[in-house]
């Protein structure tokens, strides 16, 4: 049985923040969940997916975050309790839907999880999504740990349903990916969604005349939510000391440890702001009146700090309020207990010996790399060999972005998902160097298609390579519309990439298997040589070997070895396969060998060099 379906109320389980959110959703009667995967939110989606395989709850991996939110909106407006989750940048994609869904509201409770990633552990930026609450007018809850994440999910669904408005649950990586003991509540029977849509176009169809009314209604709701925030159990103070500390999210834990370590528990009042929007102005004013000065401990932007300063100004309270700044809390990257301890010591003038550090000697870097046998590597290798060395490579987000590393060095420009195709079009109109753009299959469906149509329409001139490895590999192998292989073997794809490309108006399309170097090289060469201008598309199709082994259970029969014929020409090193090792003990004592445990048997190196031969894997 899935441990999240445990029925023993009161039992404690060691849950990941993301699992706690799922459990909270289930306890709150969520019957409909949608998501596009993205670290650090992915386990919420994957967990709902697995539960949906055995329970009538509806879950879908949507094609992108905007689609996920709009799909969820359809369910929520039909009265179904709904959860939609995404990473922080996913909310940018969904923002258009979000802003006006805030006007329209919901009937069934809806929680939208936005998982922020301070320190960019696996993201392209570290934007602070608390501003989305202020921008959209939606209420926002921010948990400090998995237990609170579960409680806030439940409270969020209730708050949403009572006020008929979606609720944002904002987490950060350290909440999503921390585990602690979570106490289970009652689990209601998990049922299929049984919604009922009632026609009400003058409240649900946002033409300007309706939008004006809805905006007024949103402002009314906000007043009511303001009262909710003032009495929310998630906004609380601890202690009665004169030194004020304001915090929220995971930083709260760092504050507690620092206060304990510094022995200043009786000197401080800690104000936790778990419902950060609407801001609990009254509690904040009372707090400001009681303390002498305030340090705000928050990650990323000075969001609470500025809000607090406005609050103080409006209440004519003149007290020192600080947060970001030299010797206090940095505005970039994650903070940690040490940083907080130092900031508290500095701000309240305490003695605190600097942490002892040891001397760390230099060790080689260990960046993540494309796996042995990854078809993306073969595609890069083939293309690099045949194109003009001046070629520009706009790229996209996925495992294949790792091709940026030398010696492949096959990435020149990237901003967000889908940017490969559209920026390639811009390059082609603005400058003269040739362009080959790369996009993954899941990314193509997520946000590549509109760019491709745009490129065809506006006569952009570039080659687009769609890296079709049959899965969303980067985030842990979720399916996408073009999936052709599943645990059950070959399946008919719901949407064929080739059909989509042709449907977008592309005339020159070639499909290759990148693991066949010679044949693929010929096919691509032919496509490049054809003198037609415009957009040419290459679909590089070969399944992710990790997916093949893990999900499809494929067994590997052969490995490759470097035989005595090797003359140390090092051509094979250009592949950058992590299974191929170069060793130079001293001058004149070089060797190249293949680590058999790592080799996935893709045979690409053997096609590059005749000194490499197959043998049976033992």
């Amino acid at each position, binding site marked *: 049985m899935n441990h999240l379906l445990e029925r023993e109320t009161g039992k*404690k389980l*060691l849950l*990941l923040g993301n699992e706690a959110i799922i459990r909270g959703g289930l306890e709150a009667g969520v019957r409909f969940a949608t998501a596009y995967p993205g*670290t*650090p939110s*992915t*386990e919420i989606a994957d967990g709902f997916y697995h539960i949906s395989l055995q329970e009538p709850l509806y879950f879908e991996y949507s094609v992108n975050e905007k689609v996920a939110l709009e799909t969820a909106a359809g369910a929520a407006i039909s009265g179904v309790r709904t959860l939609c989750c995404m990473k922080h940048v996913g909310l940018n994609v969904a923002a258009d839907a979000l802003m006006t869904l805030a006007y329209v509201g919901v009937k069934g409770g809806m929680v939208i999880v936005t998982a922020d990633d301070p320190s960019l*552990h*696996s993201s392209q930026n570290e934007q602070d999504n608390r501003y989305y609450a202020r921008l959209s007018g939606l209420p926002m809850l921010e948990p400090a*740990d998995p237990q609170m994440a579960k409680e806030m999910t439940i409270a969020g669904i209730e708050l949403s349903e009572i006020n008929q408005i979606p609720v944002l649950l904002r987490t950060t*990586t*350290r909440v999503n*990916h*921390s*585990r*602690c*003991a979570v106490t289970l509540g009652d689990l209601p029977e998990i049922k299929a969604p049984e919604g009922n849509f009632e026609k009400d176009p003058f409240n649900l169809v946002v033409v300007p005349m309706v939008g004006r009314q809805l905006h007024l209604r949103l402002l009314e709701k906000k007043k009511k939510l303001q009262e909710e925030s003032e009495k929310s159990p998630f906004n609380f103070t601890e202690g009665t000391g004169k030194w004020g500390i304001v915090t929220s999210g*995971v930083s*709260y*834990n*760092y504050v*507690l*440890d620092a206060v*304990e370590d510094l022995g200043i528990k009786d000197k401080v009042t800690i104000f936790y702001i778990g419902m950060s929007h609407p801001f609990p102005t009254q509690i904040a004013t009372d707090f400001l009146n009681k303390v002498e000065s305030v340090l705000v401990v928050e990650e990323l932007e000075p969001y609470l700090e500025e809000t607090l300063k406005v609050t103080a100004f409006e209440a004519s309270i003149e007290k020192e309020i600080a947060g970001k700044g030299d010797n206090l809390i940095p505005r970039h990257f994650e903070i*940690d*207990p*040490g*940083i907080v*301890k130092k900031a508290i010591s500095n701000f309240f003038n305490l003695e605190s010996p600097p*942490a*002892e*550090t*040891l*001397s*760390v*000697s*230099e*060790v*080689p*870097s*260990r*960046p*993540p*790399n*494309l*796996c042995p046998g990854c078809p993306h590597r073969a595609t890069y290798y083939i293309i690099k060999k045949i194109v003009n060395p001046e070629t520009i490579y706009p790229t996209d987000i996925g*495992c294949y972005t*790792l091709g940026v590393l*030398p*010696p492949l060095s096959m990435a020149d420009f990237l901003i967000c998902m889908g940017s490969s195709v559209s920026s390639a079009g811009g390059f082609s109109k603005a400058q003269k160097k040739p362009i080959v753009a790369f996009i993954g299959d899941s990314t193509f469906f997520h946000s590549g298609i509109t760019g491709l149509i745009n490129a065809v329409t506006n006569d952009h001139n570039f080659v687009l390579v769609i890296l079709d490895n049959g899965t969303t590999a980067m985030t842990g192998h979720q399916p996408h519309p073009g999936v052709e292989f599943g645990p059950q073997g070959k399946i008919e794809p719901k949407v064929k990439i080739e059909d989509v490309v042709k449907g977008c108006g592309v005339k020159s399309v070639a499909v290759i298997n990148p693991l066949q170097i010679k044949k693929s090289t010929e096919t691509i060469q032919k496509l490049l040589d054809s003198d037609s201008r415009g957009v040419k598309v290459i679909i590089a199709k070969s399944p992710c070997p*990790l997916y093949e082994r893990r999900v499809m259970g494929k067994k590997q029969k052969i490995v490759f070895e470097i035989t005595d014929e090797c003359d140390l020409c090092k051509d094979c*090193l250009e592949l*950058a396969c*992590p299974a*191929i*090792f*170069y*060793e*130079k003990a001293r001058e004149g004592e070089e060797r190249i060998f293949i680590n058999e*445990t790592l080799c996935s048997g893709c045979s690409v190196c053997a096609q590059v060099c005749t000194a490499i031969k197959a043998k049976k894997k033992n």
Partner: protein
Amino acid sequence: MSSWRIFCTGVGGQGTLLATYLIGEAALKAGLPVMVSEIHGMAQRGGVVESAVVMGDRKSPIISDGEADILLAFEPSEAMRALRKCNSETLVISNIVPLIPFTVSSGKESYPEVDKLLDSIRNQVRRFIGFNALELARKAGSELSQNMVILGVLFKHGGLPIDAEIMRDMIRTKTKKAFLDVNLRAFELGYSL
């Protein structure tokens, strides 16, 4: 404050996350307050994987520089990289078998001499326990059981307030049935060091 802050580091594929998860489960079973923090994402692609287990009277799920009570390293150069988390009172438990990163195998960077590397760690911390986890794992039946060997050493020498029997129980109930015997053997080999 009585607490145990264990920082774990290794390379994607070495099973560090399973190890931290099991320590967390064992602590929960033993009735200790516990938090585990992990970084997912790049784990599969040969990058560094760091995680932490914090037990006892502490609230933060992560460990700042210089504050680890125990460093559990699955690879020697990663032990050195993670030395920033340690202080002179730290106990370092480390596998001594290098996993050569791609930057070295492709001839771009070089891997330091392992003995010197380990000596430098040994000289700076309260106690250093280095051992060949790969050999012991092979002896147990599978290279993949190195994480269990390391857990064995931790439970023998780590001074944790958790009975080793609880950990054995966790291995029995929370790891894959197919690897159960190997895992338990590997744990015992580590435990008898």
